[in-house]
């Protein structure tokens, strides 16, 4: 075990997409109990620096493991299929069409209820895409295919954020 171990090795989890969130949370706390700089306050600068490195590494792994999208992207990268979202924007035409429809719906949504409905629709699309990700990663081991799904999910996630930002603005002024 060292700072270069993969997130899965560090958290002693099987290297796959399907994970139990409660186990990830519990492992995170176990590891931080050992490595957090607060445990080494009385032990001088060197121990503090090391604890900081470990603690940062554990938080980094936790952030990646607990978020399904980041976890999927990480698995693709580990298996030689990097996401490279900025260089790889080619998406199926049907997917792009749907994105445009969503954007239009967001533009036109005037009240909370319409936005909520749109939010639900997006959440459903997200769940479906994640299920497909799991199938591609854990059963088919098709990493380039999963990477394509991850790129699609990044679009969905960005749009979902926009919907929620709009809802927030309505809530804050209401």
């Amino acid at each position, binding site marked *: 075990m060292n700072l270069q171990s993969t997130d899965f090795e560090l958290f002693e989890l099987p290297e796959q997409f399907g994970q139990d969130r409660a186990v990830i949370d519990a492992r995170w706390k176990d590891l931080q109990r050992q490595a957090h700089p607060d445990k080494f*306050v009385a032990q*001088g600068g060197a*121990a503090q620096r090391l604890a900081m490195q470990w603690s940062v590494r554990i938080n980094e792994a936790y952030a990646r493991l607990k978020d399904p999208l980041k976890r999927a992207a990480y698995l693709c990268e580990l298996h030689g299929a990097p996401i490279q979202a900025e260089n790889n924007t080619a998406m199926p035409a049907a997917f792009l069409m749907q994105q445009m429809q969503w954007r239009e719906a967001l533009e036109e949504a005037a009240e909370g209820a319409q936005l909520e409905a749109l939010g639900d629709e997006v959440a459903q699309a997200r769940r479906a895409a994640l299920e497909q990700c799991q199938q591609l990663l854990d059963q088919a081991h098709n990493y380039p295919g999963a990477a394509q799904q991850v790129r699609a999910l990044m679009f969905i996630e960005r749009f979902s954020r926009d919907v*929620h930002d709009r809802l927030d603005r309505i809530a804050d002024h209401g």
Partner: protein
Amino acid sequence: MALLQISEPGQTPNPHQRRVAVGIDLGTTHSLVASVRHGVAECLPDAQGRVILPSVVRYLAGGGRQIGHDAQAAQASDPENTIASVKRFMGRSLKDVQGAAKLPYRFVDHAGMLGIETVVGEKSPVEVSAEILATLRYRAEDTFSDDLYGAVVTVPAYFDDAQRQATKDAAKLAGLNVLRLINEPTAAAIAYGLDNASEGVYAVYDLGGGTFDISILRLTRGVFEVIATGGDSALGGDDYDHALADWVLAQTGRTVMDATDKTALKVAARRCKEALSDAASARFEAMLGDGALTLELTVAQFEACTASLTARTLVAVRRALRDAQLDVAEVQGVVMVGGSTRMPQVQQAVAKLFGKAPLNNLNPDEVVALGAAISANQLAGNSTNGELLLLDVIPLSLGLETMGGLVERIVPRNQTIPTAMAQDFTTFKDGQTALAVHVVQGERDLVADCRSLARFELRGIPPMAAGAARIRVTFTVDADGLLNVSALEQISGVHAQIDVKPSYGLADEQIARMLQESFTTAEADMQARAVVEARVDAERMLLATHSALEADGDLLDESERAAIDQRMVAVLQVMGTEDASLIEATTKLLAQGTEAFAALRMNRGIQQALAGKNIETV
């Protein structure tokens, strides 16, 4: 164990000796110090039995100063030299301070942090805060008849990097060894959670004199995990006072004349507000330059003229819940902290939002200091019952200025700390050899709307075509929430780094000057203090090494062990001398000599964490 026999009488570091550690709540209107004694956290009283120290410092002509109650009593008669609510100015420039014109002080504007002109010259908010902290430090030292090992100082969760750094500087200036800065709501959660053996999701609503924080925490078996935090570092009870005073002036058609009037009005507003917490109506009474001002007013009127302030807190609460991706129904309890939560309209608004009565069974004035004391006790290694782990988050996003004055976010808000995040940037022009890095904090997209924390330059990039360089900028945030930024050009290896000292950047000479002028050293001689501090550090290092060897000495072979023993003996030998730099240098050698050992121990700790899991799951 042979080592202990070498030490001289009176200098034997006893690993089981209790170290005096305190928690300090450095508040806008008042401050407290608390410590764990006989297993119970309690606030320490002054000689008159008062635990609350008003956060007021008065500078007297001739160099004296009054701190606390005496200073507060002089507020109306000497407003210009009596600094109250200094916390609002920490790490702030004049343009950041809302309603500065209503305050009686003579501000001096500086780019980073403002100054205040007093009868004894200009004072930085850091210096004023240090006076308050030093007063509490003396109180603790008198209580225990011992030097302090260290202190945990609390800050509002919503404090940005500049405000945190200013607070840490003030603590250092007051001669405190800062074990940790912790967030006020987190401290309150520790005191509340441990007291009530609570588990689950809790919200801490902390409305103090000058700041508002909301934190959502998950409590599980000694782990205090902050899920989201939010707030407003310029919204508190003071603002309710101002709003009330403004309303009364508008109702009566009166105007204020001078600094004395401003203070009289503020004091009257505060008194009236407090009276309205227990009664349906109260009389507003102030003696102004042009005669007495009195007005009878009701709770309903007070609520109406401050409703927008209460509403602002609720906006922040809702946003924190959204950030935590939690519904109000999932929050098991709401802990109320800060004297301003005594206002009935605040209690009612919170109860309505969460659909349940808030928890008020702890003294809202003391709970933060008590939690800080528990944390300090733990960090100093005194705690015997159970582990306590704080997993806090960064309150505001951190980013860099990119082309067109836009912010590129590197660390998003509510990221668990400590954390390190990096992003690659490139050059804009052909042959560009330097890159200006401008670090900002805030949630807005434009640099102009965010807080500027630091600027530095990465120079010596070899000339390349635009876009060819690969500059990796890394943001590292430690457990105190303080930021360090480094930049590395990856092709050439050119490197630049900065500890983000906010733009006011108290230089070392400035700190030295402040120390020289200051309270703490007025009578004590600087040299003696340096020796004492060096000894305390040396002792700390010896203790640490000793307990490390006791726990994991088996990781070392004989020659490695002998090398460490030798350096420990060297420290013991110089500790009795009066030579601060010799003690420091020898301590440093010991620290360096144990670095490899520390690495081995850390690996073992991680392995053990994993092994522990195996046993649980088998």
